[in-house]
């Protein structure tokens, strides 16, 4: 099986989406959403990261399922690191 070649149109669409999301995240940082500000910023960052991983890094088209396993495992262990650490530090009674 030959590798997938992403069209210029799709690549440019992802690029434009990334630029727009950058503008949105900067703009929305000046709007008072209370604690939601951080969450919105992280959600937008994650959308951008997903676009890059799936389209620019070709994971969506990867014929090799092992690559997908490695990506998911890497994110899982990162979540384990961040999730368990914050579960500890954010619930401590100082």
């Amino acid at each position, binding site marked *: 099986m030959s590798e997938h070649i*992403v069209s210029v149109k799709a690549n440019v669409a992802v690029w434009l989406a*990334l*630029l727009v999301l950058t503008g949105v*995240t900067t703009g929305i940082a000046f709007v008072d959403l209370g604690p939601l500000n951080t969450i919105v*910023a992280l959600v937008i960052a994650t959308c951008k990261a997903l676009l890059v991983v799936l389209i620019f890094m070709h994971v969506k088209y990867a014929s090799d399922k092992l690559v997908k396993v490695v990506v998911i495992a*890497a*994110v899982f262990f*990162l979540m384990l690191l961040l999730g368990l*650490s914050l579960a500890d530090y954010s619930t401590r009674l100082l």
Partner: protein
Amino acid sequence: MPDSPIAVAHHNPELRHHFADMEQQRDASSLGMWLFLATEIMFFGGMFCAYLIYRLWYFPEFAAASNSLDITLGTANTAVLICSSLTVVLAVRAAQLGKRRAQVVYLALTLVLGLAFLGVKGMEWTSKFKEHHIPGPSFHFEGSVPGHPGQAVDQQHAQIFFSLYFAMTGMHALHMIIGVGIFSYLLYYAWKGRYTPEYHTPLENSGLYWHFVDIVWIYLFPLLYLIDRKK
């Protein structure tokens, strides 16, 4: 006669003898690259974890210090990096289609954008240096907590923000410098016409590296620059 019948069928000189064919070779190196990126995720993950914990503890100082960063330069640099990711993707695509000229042009553009990012980063660090925001004996931070102008800022806590800021943007910049080195190498060999539709693994894997570094910045930007910007 060569002893492997499979190797006979694929005469590509870039095919190493321990792989059955080009596709297997490409899949293997791509998997290896992703495993390397998994270790990179954990490497940066440690710093992100430290950042999140200190931000939880010292939020007022983190907000005050974050507001002292130049948001215009930060946003512009994010856009520069996103553009460089596009040129990388187009360079890989040009290799897939066997277009040498386009490959060279997009790789050169990537280098220009990468160096522009580093230049802007250098400007930002210089102004931080002049403002005495570099952690150390002469550290001094005079910013105020957003929404609480009268509140005194704890110098130690502000120093922790800047330590993390310099450690994280510094490691990111180091990755960018390594990336610029790698892409200079790629530019040279692309110019020589080494990368073909059958063999362009170095380009593809270096592209993965570049995109990864871009993703790190995608998270660093809101976390470092955009804390409590509301007026």
